[in-house]
């Protein structure tokens, strides 16, 4: 059973249910992007998957094992989650931050053993951060900082890494830097990457599987070519999209788009009134 099975979950915050009833299988070993408009429940889905949010109904299984029933420390060795734009305490160095990834493996006061040190060195190398090892995280650029957090997730030695909008607030070059790193981790270490992404073209370029959501429901989930269609984008974002094939990568991309005619008319009427 090589998947994550989300079975009829109801999730949200104390005062507001965002997801009423959602069921989906996410393949392991692939890169999956969750897309959709603001407030559609994509972060809620990711947080439920990473047990940052408790679900109100239903169950989530990782390889057949229910994750919300698992001891949180054990789950942290199977699944890592990075929230949206995390901030490190001032003065924490790159290496120190990465060493927190070893938390679920440590006991007592948590002195690092040889194994821990080996894995931290490996995570530094995999994210190309060796030279910045002793720098304070708050002195780094946005892209470097995001790489440090990813390295911490790597030090957790999990098969699955969840990321909530890993490219927000980053310049285009840094966005690519982060997504290419994730692509490498998926190819070289068979990491399952599941991330919330805002930009559908980046989602198309860097993921195998896409979950398109709208108002707490899945509108379409499947492999790239099944989801990146005019119809799906119309249903998800209420736009009229013009989809072409990227000449460099061969992925479908949304070249231009406009508001649906109906929507535009509504707006005009409102303005007129």
């Amino acid at each position, binding site marked *: 059973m090589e998947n994550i099975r989300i079975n009829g979950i109801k999730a949200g915050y104390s005062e507001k249910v965002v997801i009423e009833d959602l069921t989906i299988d996410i393949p392991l070993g692939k890169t999956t992007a969750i897309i959709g408009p603001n407030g559609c429940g994509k972060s809620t889905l990711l947080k439920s998957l990473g047990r940052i949010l408790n679900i109100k109904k239903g169950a989530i299984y990782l390889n057949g094992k229910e994750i919300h029933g698992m001891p949180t420390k054990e789950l942290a060795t199977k699944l890592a989650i*990075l929230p949206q734009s*995390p901030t490190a*305490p*001032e*003065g924490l*160095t790159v290496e120190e931050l990465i060493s*927190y*990834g070893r*938390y679920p493996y440590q006991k007592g006061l948590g002195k690092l053993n040889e194994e821990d040190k080996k894995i931290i060195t490996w995570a530094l190398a995999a994210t190309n951060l060796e030279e910045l090892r002793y720098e304070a995280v708050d002195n780094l650029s946005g892209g470097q900082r995001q790489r440090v957090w990813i390295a911490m997730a790597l030090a957790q030695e999990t098969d699955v890494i969840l990321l909530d909008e890993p490219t927000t607030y980053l310049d285009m070059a840094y966005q690519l830097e982060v997504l290419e790193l994730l692509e490498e981790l998926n190819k070289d270490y068979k990491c399952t990457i599941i991330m919330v992404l805002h930009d559908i073209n980046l989602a198309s370029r860097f993921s195998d599987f896409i979950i398109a959501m709208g108002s707490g429901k899945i509108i379409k989930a499947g492999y790239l070519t099944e989801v990146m269609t005019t119809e799906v984008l119309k249903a998800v974002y209420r736009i009229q999209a013009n989809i072409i094939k990227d000449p460099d990568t061969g992925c479908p991309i949304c070249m231009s788009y406009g508001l649906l005619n109906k929507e535009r008319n509504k707006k005009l009427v409102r303005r007129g009134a």
Partner: protein
Amino acid sequence: MKNKVKAKKINKSRSLITTVILIAGFILLFIFMLISITQGAAAIPLSTVIEAFTNFDRDNSSHLLVMDMRLPRIIGAAFVGSGLAVAGALMQGMTRNPLADTGIMGLNSGAGLAVAICFAYFKGASYFQIVLVSFLGAAIGAAMVYIISNLVPGNNHPMKLVLAGATVSTLLSALSQGIALNSNVALNVTFWTMGSVAGTNWNQIKLALPVIVTAFIGSVVISRGVSAISMGEEVALGLGVKIKLIKFLGTMFVVLLAGTSVAIAGAVTFIGMIIPHFSRFLVGPDYRLIIPVSAVLGALLLVTADLFSKTFSPPTELPVGAVIALLGVPVFLYFARKQKGDL
């Protein structure tokens, strides 16, 4: 490049710096405590002090003064200082709020009000009862601040908790003053709201010491979890940190430390805010190092401030809380300015 080498050295030596600070801190603390015992309304020569320890004479008034007044006072100062500093460190870590402090978050004024009520209306209360009431007051003060700051809509901005804390503290202190004026124990209570270790006796020490030591050991045990929480609750959850358990234990330790400290010395503010800041500046953001360093530096600060309050204009004493504020405000402003505008 030069910068990089420097960074490397700093990082590698954090635990070494901690060891040095702890050893030097203990030595300084011992020396200051010894000096403090000789100082007061009447100076007692060091030889007499040593004699009081080695060859105690019940009929010698200097010996009695040393053993029954000055020794408990100075031990009380050391434990109150470290208790408040560790409580502040725990709160700053758990709330990710650099301004967190038992004074600002309503614990001190809550405990202060509870103790004032005890003084005014239950004059026969034993010291044990006063300490229990003080815990209760600290917990109620903290709960009020927490509830009020959560009633205000908006995200978890550090200032929100601070404003709620300031409001609650002002209210509770005003009530303490009112009770004091109304029941003719004004002098007693005023000293408590300003903070002083002058009246510490052995009974208080016997009761407070095990509580503070236990809470301190507990704080060290959860310090790794507190460090993880200081990276953000969602990050900590993802790392498998049992946040609820650690926050529950941490809050309990904070209430025990603050409640005991207030029961001994009244509302001494600022230590809980300044000392963890200073410790973080010295040893970095890891609470496994911040907590022990805060304990030693907190003790050192209160012992020094108490020495100053006794010797500034004898035979009158300044309230030690005022001395700390005097020393603390400039230091705090310095660190507040250094911090990169995240407030």
